[in-house]
């Protein structure tokens, strides 16, 4: 397919390691039969490799680029739908209004997929690119806001000894990585407006985007790992800090 390996492609190992976390979550989901674990596992299974692929689409032979871009954007779209369902099932399972974003996101995704797959619009159509990024941005904003609100609420419980410091911290870590992930479509959206172009590959190879992606990527990576598979030293530190704060355990 004409792809030439470059040293920077070692960054794809990050995607692979996140997929290991995904498999772990899917195992937990099979034991607990929990929808949130399943949705989060599927999200982590799809989103990192598809994002890696999308960032490297222009490195493949031209005849494969369109097809790979469709695969990558579709994968990102589906993974964001999983995240949307996760937010609904975790934070607002009994809320009628919380179903609306899930339905709207699904409709937008299906419309976009149908239009591209039938050739009615190009995969880099500006309208499609912008609506896709806005909806993904909104999903991340939703998760970010809910996690931050719950972190605040649980921090108060923690003072009364009614919460686990590790779980309280997990809400904060979720807010960090979902907030940072929201930054990415936000920046590409801004670039799309500023450059008045829907050329995804052009935008994603710009130095500004690359620098921001790398910086946010490191922070995201660390916060995702600490969220799902925190080292014992880290959880011990959280517990010690909680005890040292003089709050009831």
């Amino acid at each position: 397919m004409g792809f030439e390996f470059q040293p920077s492609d070692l960054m794809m190992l990050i995607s692979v390691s996140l997929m290991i976390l995904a498999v772990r979550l899917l195992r937990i989901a099979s034991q607990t039969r929990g929808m949130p674990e399943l949705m989060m596992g599927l999200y982590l299974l799809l989103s990192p490799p598809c994002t890696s692929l999308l960032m490297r689409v222009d490195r493949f032979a031209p005849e494969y680029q369109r097809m790979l871009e469709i695969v990558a954007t579709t994968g990102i779209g589906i993974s964001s739908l999983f995240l949307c369902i996760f937010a609904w099932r975790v934070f607002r399972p009994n809320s009628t209004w919380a179903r609306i974003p899930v339905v709207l996101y699904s409709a937008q995704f299906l419309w976009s997929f149908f239009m591209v797959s039938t050739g009615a619009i190009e995969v880099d159509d500006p309208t499609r690119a912008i609506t896709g990024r806005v909806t993904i941005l909104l999903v991340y904003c939703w998760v970010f806001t809910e996690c931050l609100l719950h972190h605040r609420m649980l921090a108060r419980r923690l003072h009364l000894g009614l919460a686990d410091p590790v779980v309280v911290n997990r809400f904060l870590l979720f807010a960090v990585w979902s907030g940072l992930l929201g930054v990415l479509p936000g920046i590409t959206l801004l670039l799309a407006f500023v450059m008045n172009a829907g050329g995804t590959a052009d935008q994603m190879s710009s130095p500004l985007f690359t620098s921001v992606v790398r910086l946010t990527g490191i922070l995201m990576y660390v916060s995702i790992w600490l969220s799902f598979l925190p080292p014992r030293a880290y959880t011990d530190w959280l517990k010690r800090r909680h005890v040292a704060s003089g709050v009831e355990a």
Partner: protein
Amino acid sequence: MASSAAFETVCDRLEQLTSLDRLESRGTVRLLLKSAGLEASSVSGAQMAVAIDRLLGSELETRGVENVATVVSELSASVADLADESTGDSPDAIFARLGG
């Protein structure tokens, strides 16, 4: 959203034990829950008892309630043994599972 049994019990007992009317009682308990990071719809009896023991005293004093210690003690006892009626997973229970 319906309130939990613990919330309703405390509101009713607070109204009976003090000079606060229904609206004031419910408002006081809602403020108590907000300070404790709890929700009226899902708070359990055990959680409510802790919040009452730790935080309600000062709330009642600012409202000029008499015999605060007795009121707090009675309210706490009235909910401590209530069964946890929450159905489904709370966000914190789900997040606890996500860490394995």
